[in-house]
């Protein structure tokens, strides 16, 4: 008796909602979205069709979209050059270092920051270590130059005049770029871990202390297992971007120096240089299409992988 009554109530409510939703006028909502949709078309969707440029022999007299097709010719040229190997190797190697070492650095900073979180000085430390990420990479390049330039601090004061020409010796740059990258982004990337660590219930730690767990045990047995989903999510996100690089870091910090290409060229800087400096649109578009297609595949793969581990934190 009561169940039929309940059903009747539910259907009545459904009908009510249906009537109400059907009354909603979508036109104002569409108008609200219109500027955004137009912008997305111009900024994101039309360039997606621009991928076709990579398969064409560009001829300005015929216009971009009417140039002759050339199949995979551009890609063939690109992968025959030595540049292709160098830029892919650099992009992948730098990213692997940034991801693995970056995780260790960010986690350590986060654990130490939560440890001193109650002290007043933490209120000063956190903004200070995040600040390098807030300034533009151009200024970072100036800062690096103040250390490494011919009049720089390292050459004149640390090495006492027996200077090294940093901007023409490629072998030092893997170390320099790794240091600069962590200097810039370590504090900022730890924010997310600080937030998830401080969300952990403190009674867990108190119980562990009573049981005689050392600080190290508390970290490995409580902190890390609890924030594991977060770590995996962050790792997979960065793995899906493994073919992308921080354009500014690799172009500006080495001051666009040609002698350093063997260790500073990445796919992004190659795309820029062949487009703007060498005016070789074919090569440039081949490299950038290669990058975005592989990137797309990697995003899909890593998302499928996240789904298997933890459905909640999957992107889609």
């Amino acid at each position: 008796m009561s169940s039929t009554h309940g059903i009747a109530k539910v259907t009545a409510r459904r009908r009510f909602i249906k009537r109400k939703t059907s009354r909603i006028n979508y036109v104002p909502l569409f108008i609200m979205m219109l500027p955004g949709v137009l912008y997305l078309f111009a900024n994101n969707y039309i360039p997606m069709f621009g991928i076709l440029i990579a398969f064409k022999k560009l001829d300005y007299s015929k216009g971009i979209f009417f140039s002759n097709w050339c199949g995979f010719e551009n890609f063939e040229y690109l992968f025959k050059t030595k540049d292709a190997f160098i830029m892919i190797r650099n992009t992948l190697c730098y990213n692997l270092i940034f991801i693995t070492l970056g995780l260790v650095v960010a986690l350590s900073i986060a654990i130490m920051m939560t440890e001193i979180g109650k002290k007043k000085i933490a209120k000063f430390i956190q903004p200070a270590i995040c600040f390098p990420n807030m300034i533009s990479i151009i200024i970072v390049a100036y800062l690096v130059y103040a250390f490494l330039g011919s009049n720089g601090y390292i050459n004149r004061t640390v090495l006492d005049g027996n200077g090294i020409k940093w901007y023409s010796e490629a072998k030092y740059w893997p170390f320099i770029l790794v240091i600069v990258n962590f200097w810039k982004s370590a504090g900022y990337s730890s924010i997310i871990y600080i937030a998830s660590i401080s969300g952990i219930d403190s009674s867990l730690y108190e119980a562990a202390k009573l049981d005689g767990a050392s600080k190290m045990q508390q970290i490995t047995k409580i902190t890390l297992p609890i924030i594991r989903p977060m770590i995996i999510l962050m790792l997979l996100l960065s793995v899906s971007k493994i073919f992308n690089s921080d354009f500014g870091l690799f172009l500006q910090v080495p001051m666009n120096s040609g002698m350093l290409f063997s260790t500073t060229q990445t796919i992004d800087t190659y795309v820029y240089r062949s487009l703007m400096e060498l005016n070789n649109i074919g090569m440039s578009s081949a490299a950038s299409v290669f990058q975005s297609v592989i990137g797309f595949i990697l995003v899909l793969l890593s998302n499928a992988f996240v789904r298997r581990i933890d459905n909640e934190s999957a992107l889609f």
Partner: protein
Amino acid sequence: MRIIKRIIRTANLCCRPNSRVCGRMEIKMKTKKNSEKRFQNISLVIMLIITVFCIMPFILMIAASITDENVLIKEGYRFWPSKISFGSYYYLWAKRETIFGAYGISILVTAVGTFINVALTSLFAYPLSRQDFKYRNFFAFFIFFTILFNGGMTASYIVWTQIFHIKNSIWALLVPNYLMGAFNVLLVRNYYMASIPISILEAARVDGAKEIGIYTRIILPLSKPVIITISLFSGMAYWNDWTNGLYYITNTKLYSINVYLNKLMNNIAFLKSSSSITEGANLAGLDLPSVGIRMSIAVIAMLPVLIIFPMIQAQLIKGVVIGGVKG
């Protein structure tokens, strides 16, 4: 449960007078407490070292900018210059037209760009947050797909220059890449969905409010926190941007401060050529402090961020936490 039982048991043990367990526990707790304290102190020391490491380059840059030019050439950049001179700042003041011009462009682009960004983002996010909007999944995918896939830099460059012809116009600094981003839209949508109860909207509709009225009178006032967050993100992106200038701007009048710094880095002589003739005549007797001047311009370009960042950092960090979880 087990934990609680255990706590009660240890508490009972400790309360027993003169118990051996109690004494042992006390000693154990004490050593634990000491090790905790030690860990905390080590953390503090390491974090202070990291902080110094983060700040040090800025100090070197500021010190270099106020070092006397001759000392700079003789001794190089130092944290403690042996002779202080504000020569490079005087020089920049004399050349203020160029610097202020670039500053003006930066401020204009940041202000206008951030305003449009917030407007577009919020307008786009609101329908997406409405449960009763039939096409919301379609539009959500429409914007989400831009995170997954893009046409690459070359295609964007050709589209903006060949179809929209924005090269060497103020639009080139304003429009590409930064006007609306999927990340911000999803952030705002999640905020609307989580913190604006549907009952308010329904009540408003019953009272006869139109969609636009609901948006401007109810949604916008309620979304102040998230709007502040995304305007900080967007403002930072515009102020620090140099890639649009690098790709699309060759006209020196349209250089923003970062683009200007970038060009200056490649060519210090640019400053000489870009100043007007009358200014140049006044400066005829002044020799060009080419080494220190780069650092002083960088200091000037950094100044706004340095002043504003301490004020906004708490809000910004909060935004990163909210946004970082999804997206």
